[in-house]
């Protein structure tokens, strides 16, 4: 039985397989409409989430399967004091596969030790969110037709942004991928990502503070939000916040083939005036999230058409 807890749990070959399956699903959804007939997905969301839970549920429904579960801890037996391990053990008697989100880091890993069915980590605190990483990779692949020979700019809060950390780890496995890390000094990428991933694998990267200067070099721009609460003082936040808001003016120097990604939710870090730009791919990315989850559910259940 296979679980997906960490984005790196899947080999490059397995990721390729998932991308090919997702592409095939997108090509002709009707062929997959009954593939999960009679199967049940349990969504155990111990903290609220909109996109992730709904995209998992939509994915299972589009595969012809059924969905059960809860969307917050208060409506689960956790409110009565049941351990997460017991909850998962019981639910695994009722469902064929579980997607689980929990605020505590490592909760899905622990769940995988108790469960009788495959567990998909749907986010564990600030730790891992593998289906977001797969979504990002599918989007890059669909937009660029490749995962190698790319310059990827990651912009915003690179210190606390788990999606960026996972994306860097996952994309580091492909040839000639270069990263430009764009952030304020206060929110630079943690040193362990540099030493344990980038330097260890001899991956070219640069750390810069100006989005405008970096943007012309990029194939992919991965935006994240600079949050007020990450700053020690309000003055620094006010001084810096606009530098990392993407608008039409900042896009002037960008390549016409740039793809702009964002894991969402967006607050104000991408101006809505960018939404109609053909390079804005973040809503396509959200849709891709459903397709890659369909592919992952099929793979973990060992199903094919």
């Amino acid at each position, binding site marked *: 039985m296979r679980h997906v807890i960490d984005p790196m749990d899947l080999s490059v070959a397995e990721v390729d397989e998932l991308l090919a399956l997702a592409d095939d699903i997108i090509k002709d959804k009707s062929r997959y409409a009954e593939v999960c007939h009679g199967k049940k997905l349990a969504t155990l969301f111990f903290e609220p989430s909109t996109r992730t839970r709904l995209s998992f549920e939509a994915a299972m429904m589009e595969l012809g399967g059924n969905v059960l579960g809860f969307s917050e801890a208060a409506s689960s037996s956790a409110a009565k004091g049941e*351990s*997460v*391990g017991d909850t998962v053990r019981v639910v695994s008697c009722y469902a064929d596969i579980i997607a689980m989100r*929990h*605020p*505590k*880091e*490592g*909760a899905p*890993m*622990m769940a995988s*030790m108790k469960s009788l069915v495959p567990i998909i980590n749907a986010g*564990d*605190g*600030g*730790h891992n969110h593998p289906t977001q990483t797969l979504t990002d990779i599918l989007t890059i692949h669909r937009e660029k037709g490749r995962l190698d020979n790319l310059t990827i700019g990651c912009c915003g809060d690179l210190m606390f942004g788990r999606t960026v950390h996972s994306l860097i780890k996952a994309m580091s496995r492909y040839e000639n991928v270069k990263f430009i890390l764009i952030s304020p000094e206060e929110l630079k990428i943690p040193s362990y990502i540099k030493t344990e991933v980038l330097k260890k694998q001899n991956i070219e990267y640069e750390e810069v503070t100006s989005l405008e200067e970096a943007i012309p070099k990029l194939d992919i721009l991965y935006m994240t939000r600079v949050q007020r609460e990450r700053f020690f003082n309000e003055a620094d936040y006010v001084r810096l916040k606009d530098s990392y808001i993407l608008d039409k003016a900042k896009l002037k120097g960008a390549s016409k083939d740039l793809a702009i990604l964002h894991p969402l939710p967006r607050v104000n870090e991408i101006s809505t005036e960018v939404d109609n730009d053909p390079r804005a791919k973040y809503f396509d990315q959200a849709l891709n999230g459903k397709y890659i989850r369909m592919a992952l559910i099929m793979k973990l259940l060992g199903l094919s058409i």
Partner: protein
Amino acid sequence: MTIDSIQNGIVLDHIRAGRAMKLYHYLELDKLDCTVAIMKNVKSNKYGKKDILKIDDDNVDINLDVIGYIDPDITVSIIKDGKTIEKKQVEAPEKLINVVKCMNPRCITTTEQEIDQIFKLTDRATRTYRCAYCESKLKEK
């Protein structure tokens, strides 16, 4: 100062100076009924100073994983009738189970009762251990 050699027991030698008490606690030697000698700051040609632990009972079950985690250079000698009959090799173990606790307040181990505290060796060269659940680096040694 002299401490008698033991007839039947276990000697942990070449403990880095100052670590004997830590090892004593991790190995739960306080729970033993037999004589245990803790020698601190013993002169050593190799290290300058070292600690030694002598356990006067050869039936004690010593957790070699704990020793390998604290310091794989420690030597473990089994003594029978006053002679060393076996020297056990220790090395940093691949997994540490219920030896140390994860200190990350956001880790599931802080709220989920009765689950094993598991750490995995992620880099043998630097002897880096990470929590099997949240992947936090184990700092305490």
